[in-house]
């Protein structure tokens, strides 16, 4: 087809491609390989995760248990998992894998998606590659309220997920308010985030002094470093609906992100109500970050690193970038969580420590190899 056209030359009508090619970009070979590579990591990490534990299984046994048709195609089982109904009869392996071990993998997948999505959106909104839920104060706000609850208002600890989300939202609103001066700017948003993060961080440290029980301190540390230990279907049920909402809005908003990246003036002259869009997108990012903090605590670096990795692989078109993040985020989380379990086996370390240990050096590597870092 293209041969014929090139001989025609400047003909206008033939050059434009037919409509209906609207999802062409999805089949970008780079994006596809990122997606399949990530899926492979998730599957391998997940299998390692389900085969480990006090009841040990071989990989084959674990595999059989995961793909046990009696569970996979049993709507009563899914009803039990997703809606909290009565669990049907099943073999011991299946019960252990499906009821105890797999939920942790699912939570890791959902948390990875949320954090990566949140980071990607924050980076577009602030037009700054260094932005993440961490930098913009969301994590520190959530962490402060978690500590406050555990140390001072112990009776409220049943509501920790909600409280964590409220803290994240509150901190981001404070950041936005500080940054607002006849509108916001990317640099002011990041600076305000650092200010709020520093203050909240100090308050967190101060709170540790008031903790009387070492158990409370350990629980607090698990929350503030991010951990998937002990997550089950309840956490999946908690985070899944918000993830669906955030992912749909994030994918729908990717074109807005693309236009935001052209700079404030251009976005405005293209007719974007820039403050509204920025606030709405931030809202989606806060929602995603809060949902993940609510079930896994503050897992560092995922929100910062994943968008970077994806950007290096598929470019900065946000339509591809966000889709890529939805695959790479889970891969990093599931991989790191498998590492967290294997590293000091049989003891488990919080997954946040692994993501920090992996993420830090990777970021350093990026800093060294990339000429320009900062503005997207």
């Amino acid at each position, binding site marked *: 087809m293209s041969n014929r056209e090139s001989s025609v030359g*400047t003909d*206008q009508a033939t*050059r*434009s*491609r037919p*409509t209906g090619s*609207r999802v062409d970009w999805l089949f970008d070979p780079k994006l596809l390989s990122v997606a399949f590579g990530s899926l492979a990591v998730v599957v391998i990490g997940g299998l390692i995760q389900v085969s480990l534990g006090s009841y040990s299984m071989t990989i084959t046994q674990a595999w059989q248990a995961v793909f046990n048709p009696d569970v996979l195609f049993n709507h009563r089982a899914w009803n039990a998992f997703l809606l909290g109904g009565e669990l049907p009869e099943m073999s011991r392996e299946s019960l252990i894998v499906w009821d105890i071990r797999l939920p942790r993998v699912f939570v890791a997948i959902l948390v990875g998606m949320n954090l990566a999505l949140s980071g990607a959106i924050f980076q577009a909104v602030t037009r700054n590659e260094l932005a993440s839920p961490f930098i913009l104060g969301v994590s520190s706000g959530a962490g402060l309220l978690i500590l406050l609850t555990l140390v001072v208002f112990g009776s409220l600890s049943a509501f920790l997920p909600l409280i964590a989300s409220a803290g994240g939202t509150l901190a981001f609103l404070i950041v936005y308010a500080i940054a607002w*001066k*006849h509108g916001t700017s990317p640099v002011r948003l990041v600076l305000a985030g650092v200010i709020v993060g520093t203050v909240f961080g100090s308050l967190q440290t101060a709170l540790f002094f008031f903790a009387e029980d070492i158990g409370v301190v350990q629980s607090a540390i698990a929350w503030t470093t991010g951990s998937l230990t002990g997550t089950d279907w309840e956490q999946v049920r908690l985070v899944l609906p918000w993830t669906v909402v955030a992912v749909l809005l994030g994918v*729908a908003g990717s*074109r807005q992100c*693309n*236009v935001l*990246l*052209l*700079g404030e*003036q*251009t976005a*405005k*002259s*293209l*007719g*974007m*109500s820039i403050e509204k869009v920025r606030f709405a997108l931030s809202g989606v990012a806060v929602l995603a970050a809060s949902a993940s903090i609510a079930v896994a605590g503050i897992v560092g670096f995922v929100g910062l690193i994943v968008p970077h990795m994806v*950007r290096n692989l598929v*470019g*900065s*078109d946000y339509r591809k970038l966000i889709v890529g993040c939805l695959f790479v985020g889970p891969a990093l989380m599931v991989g790191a969580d498998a590492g967290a379990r294997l590293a000091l086996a049989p003891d488990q370390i919080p997954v946040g420590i692994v993501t920090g240990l992996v993420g830090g050096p990777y970021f350093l590597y990026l800093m060294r190899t990339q000429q320009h870092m900062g*503005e*997207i």
Partner: protein
Amino acid sequence: MFDTIASITQGRNRDEDDSEATATASAPESTDSSASRLTGTELVLGYPTTDDPIVDGETITGERGAVTALVGPNGSGKSTLLKGLANQLAPDDGVVLIDGQDIHSLDTKALARKLGLLSQESTSPDSITVEELVSHGRYPYRGFFEHVTYEDECAVDNAIDLAGCDHLRDRQVGSLSGGQKQLAWIAMVLAQDTDVLLLDEPTTFLDLHHQLEVMEIIETLRDEREITVVVVLHDIEQAARHADSIVALRDGEIKARGPPEEVITEQLLAEVFEIDAEVDSTDRGPRITPIRARHEGSEAESTDS
């Protein structure tokens, strides 16, 4: 060469524009109903960080289907005035009308379908292609969940063609030279398919070839599509040669306006730009030979008026 030149999307929005033009009932001219007139009246413009306004009560008109050039020394308020006209900067006082409608009252996307702006410093991610950049020009035509239409694709094709960057279509923006980048950005504004186009120093920092190319595109737009162009230019000679009308600013005040031959005089260059220069009129418009910079007030005043 191609008959689509009259409208970048082959007439998609014509009906709408016609009805609006007649609704304003301000059309004694009958030659073109598509071109728009942009008027800023008694504009007072300043930035939140400054106390005194930069532009204090000036009136400026971009005539239908004509190129109006804003010239003046650095810091004379040209860009500020342009931002005011483009609704990038809300005026403290005064009003900007496009075809008799207050641009402030228009929906942001509706305005972006009528008025395009190419800013002085445009940034984009390095890894997007020229085609992707240009397709962002269709943003004001698409709703939140809408996808690319046939019109959008035609507009992008035509804009790329008009800006002469067909050969760059699949190149990444980050790999282009300054001049090529500017052509890509111009294509993006063209894809916006507006009747009014505001350009802030589109030729500054470009080599001569690309400067001429940009000015040729502007002339094509005026001649074939009857677009109203307001352009800030650093080079007075360039302004004199390509513009239909020139507005000279100094300290936020309009010192002179009119056709190039009338505005570009030795006296004006002394007053506005503080230079001694010779102006010869040639068949390509006035030619300016700068001689020396003037220093301080005394000397300038002695030769004034």
